[in-house]
Structures are given as C-alpha cells and as structure tokens.
C-alpha cells in the first residue's frame, strides 16, 4: 500500500484553553459548592441575625473539623473503590490508648500531650496497616475487612477501659487545641484545614495521588504498568488509619473524654460526605474539595434547622430529602455542563 505517513497534526496538550468561566464550570465540585451556597443563603435569609453570625459559622467549622480529618483518608480509600467503615472505632481505640497512657503519666503539659499524640497516631496507623494488609494481600473485600476491624477495635477499646470513658485529657490539649483560637478561628479547624490542604495536594498533585486514581480506575491496568498495587493499597488504608488516630487525639482535645459509645455514626457520615462531594464508590474519580463541601452540607443543614427551630423529627426528614436533592442537582448540572457522557460511557 502506498499510504502516506503521519498526517501532520497538533495535539492538544493543555486543558486550559477556553474562558475562565468555562474552566470553572468544568470543575467537578463547583455545582455541589453552588448547592451549599444556596443552602447557606436560604438559612441566612430565614434567620439573618443568628445563622449568619461569625460565631455560628466558626461553630459549624469547629464541629466538622474532626470529620474533615477522617474524610481526607476516606476520600483516598473510596477513590481506590474501597471503603473504610472502621474509622470511628479506630478513632476511639486510638484515643483510648492515648488517654490511658496520658492518665498514667499524669502531667497536664505539652510533654504528656505529645506522647499521647504520637501514641494515638501510631495506634491508628497500625489499624490502618492491618486493614490495608487484609484488603490488599488477603483479598478480603474492604467492606468486610473494615466491618470486622470496626468490631475488633471497639471491643479492644472497651476491654482497655472496662467500658467506662476515660476523662483525663491534659489541660493544655483541651485548652489550646480543643478550644483555642487563632485570629478568631478555632485551632482545631486550622489543624484540620492543614490536613485537608496537604491531603488535597497529595491527592491531586503527587504520584501517590495519581496511583490512587489509577488503582480505582482500573486495578488490572495499574498492576500491568508495574505499580505495586498491594503496597499502595496498604499505604492508603494506613493513611486512613493514621488520620483516624490523629482524629482520636483531636477528639480527646475537643471533648475531653474518649467517646466509646459515641462515633457510631461517624463512618456513615464521613462516607456520605465523600459521596455527596462527587466521589464515586466505584472508584477512579473524586476530589478533596468535593468531600469538604459534602461535609458541610449536612452540618449546615443541621445547624440551620436547629436555629430556625425545626423539631428533630422534621429535621431528620428534611436532611434526608435535601441530601438527595443536593446530589441530584449536582449530578444533573454536571452532566449538562459537560454533556461528555454518551449512554455508552
């Protein structure tokens, strides 16, 4: 055949032509952010003097801080098409170990607090590694692994404490981290923000993040190109565990007690936030920013409803309904914005 060679062509190497408006619209998380803004605006109008106050906003921020830390790890895990149901229990067991040790050490100062912090993080990390190992090497489905470790971790926390919460966080922890403020912003929120920003950078800018997406997008392909998928999975679950451990010490600082019987809805709340934020539980897509918006929607709804005085039962109804509506709007706006998906994709 006498075909000619390469037809000269220019290959597009950057996604960033088009107007700024177009680029912004292209961002996945913009629509859900829009939903959040609308919700805030509605409550603002309904109750301007109480809802839209700096005090209320900082309270909301403070109250999502611990979940935000967990959501960072959860976002990584869900992008790999996994799930981590154990975060709440790992948080509890980490804080129990830390509290027990700090109690034994006595001291209310930074020295004791630091030891507690390190211990909490190490315990969380250990659980995460266990989860990762069972998922990656033993090939047990993540749902079962983390449901199992949820139970085991909680049981261990109960054994250590005899079922009674330990209420002895060093004062310095509670005063500076739990309730301290910097320029009016709660310290705990600043810490969470730092974790989120670092998590976002790692997810979106580094090789580690790229591999996270690759594993969720097509695990076989990731293996074939030589990514040691098992090791990465262990690392990702370890990260989630580590952050749960870190959240454990934050929780201790915030509440001054281990919350053994609490945290039972933490895993579902965090998973819901991540999914509301546009991360698919089938993996391969999602963003840190989306998860954060997804965290704020239920929190803002709850705060708003309490302030305007909706009764708890109606709140339950309204939060559920608005959740579905928010994700519906997000999905449809997004689809309309790109129109990039045929039936076959």
């Amino acid at each position, binding site marked *: 055949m006498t075909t000619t060679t390469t037809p000269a062509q220019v290959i597009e190497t950057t996604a960033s032509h088009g107007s700024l408006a177009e680029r912004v619209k292209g961002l996945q998380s913009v629509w859900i952010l829009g939903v959040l803004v609308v919700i805030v605006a509605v409550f603002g109008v309904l109750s301007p003097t109480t809802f839209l106050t700096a005090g209320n906003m900082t309270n909301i921020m403070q109250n999502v801080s611990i979940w935000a830390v967990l959501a960072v790890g959860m976002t990584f895990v869900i992008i790999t098409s996994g799930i981590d149901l154990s975060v709440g229990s790992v948080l509890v067991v980490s804080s129990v170990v830390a509290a027990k040790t700090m109690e034994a050490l006595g001291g209310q100062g930074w020295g004791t607090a630091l030891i507690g912090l390190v211990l909490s993080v190490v315990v969380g990390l250990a659980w995460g590694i266990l989860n990762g190992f069972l998922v990656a090497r033993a090939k047990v489905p993540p749902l079962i692994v983390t449901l199992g470790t949820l139970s085991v971790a909680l049981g261990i926390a109960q054994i250590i404490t005899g079922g009674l919460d330990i*209420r002895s966080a060093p004062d310095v922890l509670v005063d500076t981290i739990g309730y301290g403020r910097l320029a009016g912003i709660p310290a705990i929120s600043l810490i969470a923000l730092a974790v989120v920003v670092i998590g976002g950078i790692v997810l979106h800018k580094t090789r580690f993040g790229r591999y996270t997406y690759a594993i969720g997008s097509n695990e076989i392909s990731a293996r074939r190109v030589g990514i040691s998928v098992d090791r990465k999975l262990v690392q990702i679950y370890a990260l989630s565990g580590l952050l749960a451990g870190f959240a454990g010490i934050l929780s201790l600082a915030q509440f001054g007690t281990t919350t053994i019987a609490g945290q039972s809805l933490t895993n579902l709340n965090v998973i819901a936030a991540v999914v509301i934020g546009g991360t698919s539980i089938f993996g391969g897509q999602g963003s840190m920013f989306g998860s954060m918006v997804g965290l704020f929607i239920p929190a803002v709804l709850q705060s708003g409803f309490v302030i305007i005085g909706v009764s*708890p039962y109606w709140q339950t109804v309204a939060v559920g309904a608005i959740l579905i509506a928010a994700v519906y709007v997000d999905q449809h706006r997004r689809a309309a914005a790109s129109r990039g998906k045929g039936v076959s994709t």
Partner: protein
Amino acid sequence: AEDTTAAAGGSDNKNIAFVQGVAGDEFYITMECGIKEKAAELGYTVTTQGPQKFDPTLQKPIVDSVTASKPAAMLIAPTDVEAMQAPLEQAAAAGIKVVLVDTTVNDPSFAVSQISSDNVGGGAAAFDAIKAAKPAGGKVLVISTDPGISTVDARVKGFEDAVKADSAYTYLGVQYSHNDPATAANLVSAALQKDPDIVGIFATNLFSAEGSATGVRQAGGKDITIVGFDAGPNQIKALEDGTVQALVAQQPATIGSDGVEQADASLTGGTVTPTIQTGFTIITKDNLSGEGGDAAYKSSC
C-alpha cells in the same frame, strides 16, 4: 455576670430550648411534656432538639447551634460529664441560663441549677424488685445497650453493687444489645440456653426489655422476672401485659417542670435552688392502681 441585654435578661425573650440526651426516647419525651406544661403556664415557648444517639459527638453541634439561636434559657441533659462541659460553658457565657436536667457535668458552676435522677440508686432499686419477686435468690443477668452511656452505666453499676452484696444471688454480668431488640432476644435466648435457671433480668432500657421479653418467650416462657427501667406508656403496657414484671420509674415530668421553674426564677430574679435530687419508684402490677400508677410517665402532653 452579664449585662442585661435583650438576649440574656430582657423579659421580651421568652424562648426556652430543651436539648434531649437522645431524640425519640420516652423518658425525654415525658420530660418534654413536663417542660411544655410548665412553660405554657409561665408564658414561655419551648423548642426541643436532640441527637439521634446518646452521643456527645452528636450532641455538641446541636448545643452550639442552640447557643447561636440565643434562647433565654436552655434545659439540657448532657450526654457526657466532660465532653459537654465546654460547649455549655460557652452557652452560659453567651448569657443563656443553663439548667441541667437528668444528667450533669463535671463542674456545673456555670449552671443556674441541676436537677438529677439517681441512676445508681435506680439500678439498686431494680435489684430490689427482683429480690421481691424471687426472694429465694438465683442467677441474674443484665441486658444493656452499649458500654459508655453514662446514665445506663450508672444503672448497671448500682445493680451490680447491690447483687454482689447479696450472697443469695449470682451475678451473670452484662450483655450489650446495641439497642437492637433482635440482638437482645438472641442474647437472652442464648443466655438461657447456658443458664436455664436464671431468675431475673434487669433490662436497662426499653428495647433491652422488649428484646429480653421476646427471648424469654422464645425459650418457652419461663418464670423469669424482667425488670425494666423507666415507666413510659409502653413500659406500663408491657407491665400490664405481663411482659415485664417490674419497672423502675424516674420522675421525668417533675424534672422537666422543676427545670422550667428554675430557669424562670433565674430569669425573673426569683430564688433559684442550685441542686435538686429526684427519686424513683418501683412499679409492679400490684401497685399500678396506687402509688405505682402515679409514678407512671404521662402518656401525652
């Protein structure tokens, strides 16, 4: 300590917020009834809020939002003595009169008053009820919800201490039903399989009692005394039906109306009683028509 601002002391703010330990629980609903009745009498409006579980991590955000909504007073059943300390201090600092009802916190000095039930005593009373029904002694079991819930733990402790002080009875320990009646039923039927000679079960809350009764019935309806806690309409009905044999009743409606009185006193400059302790009553079929019946919680507001 605060200047009299509209939010704090002004007589135009007639809003009282009631924060339950957990939403949808008969004990707190009865308390709400007491609160509403007294509030109507004194000219206050009440909004009620509560977390989905008895869990400080879920109650704190609600308290924060209630604080932001600036009611004149807040009646609250704190879910943890330590965890709720700081958020409630914040509420008090914002000029809200805080009244602790049912449960308390480590340092309640910010509160205008605390009105509490004696859960440890309630647990001991539950044992007394079993003792009354089964004086010969034998094995006794506790079915509870989850470890770490302060009020329930106190009941268990009171019960345990009382059993251990009486050598005629053998304490089989506590099993946790996670507030799921099916799990409670499974636990009780298995426990009966192991120890068919159990004479009494202390079920620390409604679902534990329901599940225990189911479990006992499954095992062939043995003669076992089930003592429940609280005396809401359902528990009373269960007592009438013979599903449970005795109930330990607290006084939620009284706690509620006392709470409103205290809040009102502090808002209007009346005399405030800083601590009020309420008692409990054992209700059995026998005293239902008399003392026991009076102790039963109100069925509706």
